[in-house]
């Protein structure tokens, strides 16, 4: 009886954990950095794959158009089209890059606004460390040729930079949602730590990213940003493909924006999202989709409300 109960508890725990874990689209003008690595789960065959891919991200927000509680709201729809790729240089080292194209729309009660163009490109270098099970001395005594056995754990450390390839407009900073920009106009540093664990049927991916924002030519500096994401996935292997449904969580913490080295009030915030999605991996391509919904948020003094986000991606493997 005790065992049954414990089993039930463990199962429940796994379920709960799975439910809490989430990921991937970050609510902000920064949709870069670690998303390159978390875009595909890197299970088995993918470990050293190089690929190019295309990703579409849709995000929606509601922002207050004014400073009062009864100010009208504007509806924002952000469409981002990303070209991205990853190329291994050695067994342990690879580089990734993203070039986004942004199409941002904002509807006020009486007018509409639209900006589009290239966003900020990100280039990252990655170092991957795979962990192996402890060397089995007993086995080594019996057999002469003992292979190292992967433990299923691996970590990736990434360092890179986000380039000001997207246009930054000072005039747009006067509006309530400071994320309504094609780019930050600054050289930013991106530091990333990713851990993944893959067992036979399931796995967990966790990303921590820190964005060190630079100052742009308007003496404007977006707040440094910390992003975290964790996904729990389950692998269903078929003859020709593998299906990976996943569920997870992610979040962002933004520091205050500074201009002229002065912090601007109501420009910091946090958002915590839940996400569900699935990925299909074949020997030639990876197709994935996920849906993100904010669970809790407090962005820019509560003046910006993140709504849902959707992402669809298709990656082609280059080294078959």
């Amino acid at each position, binding site marked *: 009886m005790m065992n049954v109960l414990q089993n039930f508890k463990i199962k429940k725990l796994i379920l709960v954990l799975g439910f809490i874990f989430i990921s991937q689209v970050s609510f902000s003008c920064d949709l870069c950095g670690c998303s390159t690595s978390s875009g595909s789960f890197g299970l088995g065959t993918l470990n050293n794959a190089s690929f190019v891919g295309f990703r579409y991200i849709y995000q929606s927000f509601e922002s207050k158009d004014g400073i*009062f509680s009864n100010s009208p709201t504007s509806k924002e729809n952000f469409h981002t089209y990303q070209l991205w790729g990853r190329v291994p240089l050695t067994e342990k080292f690879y580089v990734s890059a993203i070039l986004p194209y942004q199409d941002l729309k904002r509807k006020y009660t009486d007018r509409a606004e639209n900006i589009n163009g290239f966003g900020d490109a990100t280039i990252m270098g990655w170092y991957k460390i795979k962990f192996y099970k402890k060397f089995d001395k007993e086995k080594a005594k019996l057999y002469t040729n003992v292979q190292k056995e992967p433990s299923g754990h691996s970590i990736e450390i990434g360092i890179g930079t986000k380039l000001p390839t997207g246009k930054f407009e000072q005039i747009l900073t006067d509006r309530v949602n400071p994320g309504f920009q094609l780019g930050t106009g600054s050289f930013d*540093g991106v530091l990333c730590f990713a851990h993944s664990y893959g067992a036979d049927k399931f796995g967990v991916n966790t990303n921590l990213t820190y964005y060190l924002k630079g100052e742009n030519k308007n003496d404007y500096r977006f707040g440094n940003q910390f992003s975290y994401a964790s996904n729990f996935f389950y692998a269903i292997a078929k003859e020709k493909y593998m299906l990976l449904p996943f569920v997870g969580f992610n979040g962002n913490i933004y520091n205050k924006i500074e201009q002229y080295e002065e912090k601007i009030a109501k420009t910091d915030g946090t958002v915590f999202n839940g996400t569900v999605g699935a990925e299909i991996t074949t020997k030639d391509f990876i197709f994935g989709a996920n849906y993100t919904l904010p669970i809790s948020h407090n962005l820019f003094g509560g003046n910006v409300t993140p709504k849902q986000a959707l992402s669809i991606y298709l990656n082609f493997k280059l080294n078959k």
Partner: protein
Amino acid sequence: MKITKYIAACFIALTITACSSEEEEITGEGNVSLEFDNSYSTSDLLLTTTSYDANETEEVKISKVKYIVSNIRLEDEDGVVFTYPKEDSYFIVTEEDGASQFINLTNVPAGNYTKITFGIGVDKEKYLEGATGQGDFLTLAQDAGMMWSWQAGYKFFVFEGVYTSDETTTETAFAFHMGSHGTALDNYKEVTLDLTNSARVRVDTTPEIHVVADISKVLAGTTSFLLDDAAQIHVDAVKSPQISTNVNGMFTVDHVHN
């Protein structure tokens, strides 16, 4: 080792951008736009149509909000004070007139200003200059209904509407008119506010200082006023100074656009 090269390249790129800020020389004159935005608590003030909670069971519908803003001074980050020329430093802000809520200050020395001071009403010194010393402002104030008479003086603050309460169930008019009473009572007071971020006046950039005036503070400020006790307050040696204090407490700087 390739990896170290890439990391080094990233750091170099970041360092270059981080170190490229240069000292700018600040000279010349520019403009400042000062916006007075009236609210009722956190809501944008809406005249006549909206009923607001006041003290106890009282509810108000406001029909008129007007005040005189004067003697504007700006203090920069080094503590240097720029006083706007006194003869040009009297303005009437009217809720019904959107344009009146934007005060444009010209020929302001370029600088980084961190504080603003302004008066509500007309100071004794100005009043003592006599009717001719008031220049165009006298006519302006008369036309706007911001004077009782020359002898009684200017109305610094006008607040009118109708109210209801548990006691007063039919809409009843109220009016608070606050000012100095000739030379007998001086109700002119100044407000100094820290700017949320510096207003950076340059020859080619006009910062906008967005001031919010929370009108709910008139009835519920340092002193609480029940309209059932007195719905009409005009010249009152006790209550006028109290209203003046409440009015001074209603201003905050929401933000500054550069």
